[in-house]
């Protein structure tokens, strides 16, 4: 007879594990990836490939040679960081910038905190924001959709939110919204923007997949999108000349990508449902405030990073509802 194995209960385990969850998220991003290839062609493919490869490579190199621990570069998390980073870069960004972004994302965003599970900020967003403030020109010249065979030489233009930010004051919001692509184009992603953030419909499809597979719960995306819609809708009702309508806000910029993929990152989001709702609402409010009052046309990435810092606090003060009330022994 073989030696018996002894361990504490439970003796059963679900089929789910970390790589399966990570690759589940990646699968859910495929529709958005396909739309992006359709609009940005070769540039998107190059950016994504470089980003994923660099993230995995840097994770491997840092773990193997700097931290001297067993590399975990294939558990899917570095792949996912790379894909997310690529999704929020313009499809015409030079490849060496992507590599800088990847090393910041993995090196500073993740490994300095102790690797997967310990980072405070979403690594992909750390990389993106680093590039955004370091190379503002390259990071804000977005290629026009429909150029299949171009990479760095693509014709560029302003994003819908950029048009709004630049023009407000001289024109009314309604006029500016009219200059941007129509709602249907915004919905399918035919606009200028970061490579993966454009196609609202594909991102929503991904959200649906993740909800069905129970990879994430609805709390964060719904609370962010809902807050943005309510807040911008409120402003729009007050003064439609000054503020764009909520649908425009929902469909443009990185809001969908941020709400569905960036803010829901396991490690950097709250642990309880209550905490998630508050986190989502605050991200929504901050996003709108930055979009309307800030210097940048888009604010979702900053809003998420700011709220990431508050997650430990949310975890401390928003506990799940315990089963049963305290009994008073007397």
């Amino acid at each position: 007879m073989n030696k018996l194995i002894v361990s504490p209960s439970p003796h059963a385990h679900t089929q789910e594990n970390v790589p399966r969850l990570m690759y589940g998220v990646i699968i859910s991003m495929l529709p958005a990836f396909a739309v992006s290839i359709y609009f940005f062609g070769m540039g998107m493919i190059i950016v994504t490939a470089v980003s994923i490869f660099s993230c995995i490579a840097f994770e491997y190199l840092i773990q193997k040679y700097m931290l001297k621990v067993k590399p975990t570069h294939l558990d899917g998390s570095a792949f996912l960081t790379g894909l997310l980073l690529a999704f929020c870069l313009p499809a015409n960004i030079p490849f060496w910038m992507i590599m800088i972004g990847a090393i910041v994302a993995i090196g500073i965003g993740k490994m300095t905190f102790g690797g997967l599970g310990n980072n405070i900020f979403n690594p992909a967003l750390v990389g993106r924001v680093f590039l955004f403030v370091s190379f503002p020109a390259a990071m804000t010249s977005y290629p026009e959709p429909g150029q299949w065979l171009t990479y760095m030489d693509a014709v560029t233009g302003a994003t819908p939110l950029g048009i709004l930010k630049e023009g407000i004051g001289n024109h009314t919001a309604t006029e500016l919204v009219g200059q941007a692509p129509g709602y249907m184009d915004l919905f399918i992603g035919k606009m200028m923007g970061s490579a993966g953030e454009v196609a609202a419909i594909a991102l929503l499809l991904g959200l649906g997949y993740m909800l069905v597979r129970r990879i994430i719960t609805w709390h964060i995306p719904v609370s962010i999108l809902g807050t943005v819609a309510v807040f911008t809708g409120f402003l729009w009702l007050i003064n439609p000349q000054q503020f764009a309508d909520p649908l425009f806000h929902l469909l443009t910029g990185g809001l969908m990508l941020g709400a569905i993929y960036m803010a829901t990152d396991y490690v950097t989001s709250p642990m309880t449902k209550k905490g998630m709702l508050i986190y989502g609402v605050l991200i929504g409010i901050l996003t709108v405030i930055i979009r309307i009052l800030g210097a940048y046309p888009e604010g979702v990435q900053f809003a998420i990073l700011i709220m990431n810092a508050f997650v430990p606090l949310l975890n401390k003060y928003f506990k799940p509802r315990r089963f049963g009330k305290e009994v008073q022994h007397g």
Partner: protein
Amino acid sequence: MSQIILYTIITLVAIGAVAAIILYLVAQKFKVYEDPRIDQVEEALPAANCGGCGFAGCRNFAEALVKSESFDDLFCPVGGNEVMGAVATILGREAVEQDEQVAVIRCNGTPEFRPRTNIYDGAGSCAVAHSLYTGEGGCPHGCLGEGDCVVVCDFDAIHMNPVTGLPEVIDDKCTACGACVTACPRDIIELRKKNKKDRKIFVSCINEEKGGVARKNCSVACIGCSKCFNVCPFDAITMNNNLAYIDPVKCRLCRKCVPECPTDAILEINFPPPRDKSKEKVETASETTDSGGTEKTNKNS
């Protein structure tokens, strides 16, 4: 241009000055008087913050030392008599000399002596394994080998030997802080008096079962036969609950008990290898294991 620079400098200097004044005033207002000797004593302590003295850290211990009347209950095992002497000089008190100690592992249940009959697959913690069952070897008192003692050691003085599955203490690094003693859920580790050349004689078993049961669990278990007890010329050995224990202070390292033991449960370590078995060499080369049992002298004449 130069004006901008000028204004900048003036503003910065002004902010700096105001902040300095505020800091100074606040520091004055909330100043807490502290005995300056606390700092001096803390300086003299090893700063390992290991908690071996029973206090949370060296500073708390220093405070306790300064406050205390005598050093009877206060001892820094890491610094030893030297440090306690220095502290005594600072405070103008009498140091209480204590024997230098070292941690010894009182289990010799290697796979050879105590075959592993099952595989443990739970959390890698002795405490978890101990609360679950008797362990891979089936001995309810034996080392579980998950290394809780290794994790708590602040001095890198204890390591698991992958061959024997038992921890080993590096005597030179061990400071006798006692962290491993507390961590071991089976109370296998004991602090024993350090002898010259790190020589040790101890019963490497804490099994209190009856002889037959103990022997079934492990071939080098103490079976409580009292042979060592009868031969000891110094009354250093006590018998209690089927277990022999050698008092490290009374023991004079005469080694008379060692050949008496029918199960080889008494280990002699770091002695020159003159007369007996070759097995001893192996043990000397690697490390210590130690043993003993609960005290209580058995005055059975």
